[in-house]
């Protein structure tokens, strides 16, 4: 019986990247307990609801960034695409265009950025950092220019359905934002862990030459990862627009960093080929709990940033140590 139990535990831990997920989950639980002791209202139903709503956008951009990072690249444009999504959709809605049409136009614009990112990196072999730095600036520029360098007016009563769908509405007592995030997580997690596309994404990040030799279309796979990233940014852009009821030009500022933090804390390797989206949930949750908990504890913003920064560095350090310290196991020669 004991042996069977050990076997299940071993099998569970042998799931790709599960080791780090378990470690950071323990960290998350400890953090929750500490914040719960420091401030009993941390576990109140209201705060938990707010906390989930706070985590949702970070998790979504984290999912996008994880896809890209698993291919061994990075997407710095994710925050700007988010801002672009927010501004384009809001501007269109304030001009009287129906929210559905506005959402589709915005989607097309955001996916175009993802496509360009993917092609620049995979087809034209630009370093991902540089390529997405360029599109980051461009997308932010578009977000600014779309309403002549002004934030938009309120999106109006015609868009109330849009606001309810993305932010204010509830289903079974849980905010729609959380449901949207959950559905997208399930879809993208399935895509990454159970499908051929997912295996190709891991293969490209693990050994791009081997992937090419095995018939994997490296360009298409990389483009797909960037498209997922842009789609996630697009969704968060709409949530941001629904939350504020207007388009703000600086929406999504620094979100590329939050996305990297959520992915890396959750065990996605900066070197590519490794990581699971369950880890990204934990990474986003740690980010959210730290923000929320430290706020409850009265810590200044600067302190929160320092703590999150330290956690990101420690996570990457752990990843590097695990990767470089690991030796191929010994086997008897056959």
């Amino acid at each position, binding site marked *: 019986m004991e042996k069977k139990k050990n076997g299940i535990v071993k099998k569970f831990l042998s799931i790709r990247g599960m080791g780090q997920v378990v470690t950071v989950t323990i960290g998350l639980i400890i953090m929750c307990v500490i914040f719960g002791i420091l401030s009993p209202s941390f576990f109140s139903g209201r705060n938990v609801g707010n906390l989930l709503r706070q985590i949702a956008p970070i998790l979504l951009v984290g999912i996008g960034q994880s896809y890209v990072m698993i291919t061994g690249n990075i997407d710095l444009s994710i925050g700007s695409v988010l801002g672009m999504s927010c501004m384009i959709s809001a501007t269109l809605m304030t001009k009287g265009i129906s929210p559905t049409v506005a959402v589709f136009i915005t989607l097309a614009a955001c996916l175009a950025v993802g496509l360009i990112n993917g092609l620049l990196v995979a087809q034209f072999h630009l370093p991902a950092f540089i390529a997405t730095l360029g599109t980051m600036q461009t997308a932010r520029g578009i977000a600014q220019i779309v309403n002549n360098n002004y934030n938009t007016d309120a999106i109006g009563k015609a868009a109330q359905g849009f606001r309810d769908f993305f932010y204010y509405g509830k289903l079974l007592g849980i905010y729609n934002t959380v449901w949207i995030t959950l559905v997208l997580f399930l879809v993208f997690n399935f895509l990454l862990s159970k499908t*051929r596309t997912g295996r190709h994404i*891991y*293969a490209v990040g*693990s*050994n791009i030459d*081997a992937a090419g030799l095995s*018939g994997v279309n490296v360009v298409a796979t990389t483009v797909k990862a960037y498209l997922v990233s842009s789609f996630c940014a697009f969704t968060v852009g709409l949530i941001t627009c629904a939350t504020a009821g207007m388009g703000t030009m600086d929406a999504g500022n620094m979100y590329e960093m939050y996305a990297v933090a959520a992915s890396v804390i959750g065990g996605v390797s900066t070197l590519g080929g490794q990581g699971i989206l369950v880890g990204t949930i934990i990474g986003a949750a740690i980010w959210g709990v730290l923000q929320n908990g430290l706020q409850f504890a009265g810590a200044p913003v600067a302190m929160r940033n320092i703590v999150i920064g330290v956690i990101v560095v420690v996570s990457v350090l752990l990843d590097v140590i695990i990767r470089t310290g*690991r030796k191929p196991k010994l*086997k008897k020669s056959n």
Partner: protein
Amino acid sequence: MKEEILRFDHVTCVHRERTVLKDINLHIFKGEIVGLLSINYQGIKELLDVLSDNVPIHYGYVYFDEQLVNCYYREGSSRNKVSVIKKQSSLAEDLTVCDNIFALRRGFKKYVINSGMLKKQFRHFVDELGIDLQGDELVKDLSVFDRKLVELIKAVIAGTRLIVIDNISDLFSKAETSRFQELLHYYVNKGCAVLYISNHHEEVFQICDRVMIMENGQILQVLERQSFIRENIEPFYLSKWQNLERPGDLREKNVLLEFDGVTCERIKNLSFSVYRGECVILQDTDNIVTEEIVDILRGKKSLVGGHICLGYGEYSEKRRKNYLREGIAFIDKNPIESMVYKEQSYYENLSCLLKERKSDLLNGRKIKKSIIKEYISRTGEDIYTKNIMELSEASLYNMLYYRVHLFHPQVVILIQPLSEADMYGRLHILHLIKELTKKHITIIILTVNLSDTLIVANRLITIKKGRVSGEYKSDEFQKFEQDAITPENIW
């Protein structure tokens, strides 16, 4: 009648106005292992490109599975059912064995992956072969041998008709090579064909049904099994080695480096001595301790038990961390990749180790002049080269070995020095090793297979299961005639 898998009919390839393949005629039939003994690497890459990807050819015809797939007057069709297993891994390390074999292959149709089903299919294959591999293991956790095994199984599962083995035996121990060859025979009997490329005649004679000798992109001779004797390859191969000087006997036997009961993770109670000025081969017969010995000598690993002595006393962990200052230099397995500073000039590369001795030594123009004066007779005008990437491979090897020559350490550890070189390359490296011995630098050659190292060695120490399993002086090297060229084969 034999079923033909591949036929090259007078294939000639020209690349940048240079003939890289010249009038190649090659037949491979089903159930056959054909050897390609490459005297040098010229033309091998192009041959593999034509063979697998049907790249354009200048003259001739290529038939695969009895179909014309490429000829000089029209573009070849897409790809042939050929898999090339080479030193460089073609596996995604972060994926499991099953994922690599099934999901990462051309023509894998299923979109949603059922891992359980893949594992079952994989089990069926490995049970048939009697090997101990788990489908859900990550490739990065496998040994080099197991990775190559996975590549072989992947090739067979992908329906490959012709498997090309491109010089991979340097990665294996002798036992592993034999095991790998057994598996090749197994698949050949099941209907595959194999083109076995190697630059060691001992190896191709062991496994192949026919051997072609190739040099400068041209087939020089084809040998059938009954002609697999050393005399037949002597004109192409061994005669070129006679310029090497036979190693002399040691005048005095002063111990310089001693391992006394050294134990670490994989090393178990390892004891041996190396004399000053000696050239010793440490053969890691089961391919498990080479890396650990290097890590220990570089101070990257601590000893669990035992002692190491170097020169005047114990070679402690503190001393080991400053191994260069202690007079131990290393030349890595693939030094052109790992030890060349590509942005620096030849002189800077040549003299970089001297900084370990005295940091301000190199600032003086006089010193530079004197180094150039001393080495120009060996390196030629190369020593003035600013962009070293323009240099030939032989010049880069010169630079790396003369770097050690100039540094003059007590001991130099050569890690599989011949593994990346063709026959001319090996000969060149052996000459360079001789130059080091002439300067009375003690040499330890760490290797998995003997290759041609016996020619320059005074002694061979074999290590099995982490401990010394045998010790042989140069007059006993004839015992290894089946595995490597011995001094008696040449002189």
